[in-house]
């Protein structure tokens, strides 16, 4: 057991729960009469309440973005590389809010929560939730915390999409928007991968059309498979080659060997899959991938991202990674070009990185350098 957290960590943090009894009208037309959001905060809100940063999580993320829940934790929060004292999102300067989105499975109201109408878990009856619903619920959380205007809303991947949605839905409540490894909408290829992931879950006999909780079962194999597919899209060809190559974990490729050999990459993916299926809810995974599929910043704006961004009044930082093929640099440039055409202040950096989409979570020196330079500016503006 460690006796203390590292110096550049926010240390031990405790998740909090905010309860909302004002009904939330969702974009699907249904209403949630009440709901809870799990969140964490790091740093101190200043007297003028203008140093608050909202962190939006990606597909499988949650509120635990930085620090440790206990000294026994093996790993810190998912974005600990970027959040903490002296890090780009500097907790000596900023008050950081990180939540688990509505529909999640880490403490916020979602498919595995109890439906107050039936006393049973929501399961597949939980209403579909879209990015704009998340942003609305995040705005309610801001009200709850007494934050009128975020110094910045920041997110990578699906989190970056929420940040962009913030910029056009609540222009008066956000001063800076940081969009990392994201896109204006999913491509056909992105949609295809999400569909395969959902099919993997839905075809698991333990899924029971989503009612697995009432059957006391878990579609662990389907969920693991979905994660394995997703995980491949987070890594680059190069990153996989460097990490595993064709190394064998067991068996041999020599003549006269009948038993199948096992490659390292196989066992890695299986490990990732089984780890994930023990910690994540299948209905939430389906809900999150659908939210990702349906996200289209231009939908209410004649498919024109320029006219969408004309509603924004904040400044933007957009970052992409050279080997990211899930949301490639080209997708980020589409965001940047629309912002330029809409005459919004924007900076853009394309980071040379080997790690693919996952790069946004990793301590790549130039990435941290650019991010840090921009956050200094956010700090000066607050």
């Amino acid at each position: 057991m460690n006796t203390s957290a590292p110096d550049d960590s926010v240390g031990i943090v405790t998740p909090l729960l905010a309860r909302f009894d004002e009904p939330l009208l969702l974009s699907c037309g249904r209403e949630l009469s009440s709901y809870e959001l799990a969140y964490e905060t790091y740093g101190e809100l200043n007297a003028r309440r203008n140093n608050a940063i909202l962190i939006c999580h990606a597909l499988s993320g949650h509120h635990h973005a930085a620090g440790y829940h206990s000294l026994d934790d093996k790993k810190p929060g998912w974005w600990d590389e970027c959040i903490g004292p002296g890090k780009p999102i500097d907790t000596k300067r900023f008050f950081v809010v990180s939540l688990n989105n509505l529909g999640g499975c880490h403490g916020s109201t979602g498919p595995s929560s109890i439906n107050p109408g039936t006393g049973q878990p929501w399961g597949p009856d939980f209403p579909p939730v879209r990015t704009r619903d998340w942003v609305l619920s995040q705005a309610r959380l801001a009200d709850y915390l007494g934050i009128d205007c975020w110094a910045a809303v920041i997110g990578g991947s699906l989190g970056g999409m929420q940040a962009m949605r913030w910029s056009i839905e609540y222009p008066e409540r956000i001063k800076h928007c940081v969009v990392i490894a994201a896109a204006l909408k999913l491509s056909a290829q992105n949609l295809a991968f999400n569909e395969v992931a959902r099919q993997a879950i839905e075809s698991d006999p333990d899924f029971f059309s989503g009612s697995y909780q009432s059957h006391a079962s878990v579609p662990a194999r389907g969920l693991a498979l979905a994660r394995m597919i997703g995980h491949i899209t987070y890594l680059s060809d190069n990153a996989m080659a460097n990490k595993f190559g064709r190394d064998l974990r067991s068996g041999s490729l020599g003549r006269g060997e009948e038993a199948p050999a096992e490659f390292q990459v196989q066992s890695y993916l299986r490990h990732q899959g089984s780890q994930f299926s023990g910690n994540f809810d299948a209905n939430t995974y389906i809900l999150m991938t659908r939210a990702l599929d349906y996200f289209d910043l231009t939908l209410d704006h004649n498919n024109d991202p320029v006219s969408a961004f004309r509603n924004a009044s904040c400044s933007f930082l957009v970052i992409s990674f050279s080997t990211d093929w899930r949301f490639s640099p080209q997708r980020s440039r589409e965001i940047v070009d629309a912002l330029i055409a809409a005459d919004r202040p924007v900076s853009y950096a394309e980071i040379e990185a080997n790690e693919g989409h996952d790069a946004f979570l990793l301590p790549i020196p130039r990435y941290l350098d650019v991010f840090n330079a921009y956050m200094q500016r956010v700090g000066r503006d607050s």
Partner: protein
Amino acid sequence: MRLDLSHIQRWIEPHSRVLDLGCGDGEFLQILRDQRQVRGLGLDIDRHYISAAIARGIDVIEQDMDKGLANFPDQSFDTVVLALALQAVNYPDRVLEEMLRIGREGIVTFPNFGHWRCRLMLGIQGTMPVSSFMPHTWYNTPNIHFCTVKDFEKLCLDRGIRILERNVVGNTNRPPMLSTRWPNLFATTAIYRITR
């Protein structure tokens, strides 16, 4: 501030929108912002400059001019600046055309290869010029398209580009009248304000 930049500063209208192609660390845009309340956007390909410009609070886009500027809409800026970068791009003529498509006016500065010292080195010594102003050897230089004052003005004439103003920076040890009177021979840096 670099001499060519202090010359062109007064050509930039307060509160206007300026695109600086090859903006480096953003120093010029910062001066324009602080002194002329200009809304600036920089563009550079050098990764070291990107975070330096962002740290100054200057908006900058990491982009390679040689791959085109089609992502900038027509007439979306008041002024497009290309300071000491014309000689370093693959297609200087295309960049000039693009500058005047994107901006109402363009400002171009470049080292004058017609300067008498260059001519002396090439003509008498028979070697490519190297000086404190052009410090690179011919085989290791970002400057791939040198031109003279005369060359540039001919290109403008051929392409229907109007020269609104010309300014020159000469050798500071000599009377400025020399470079003003005979720019192609005495200007070290040529400075132009152009439009369609």
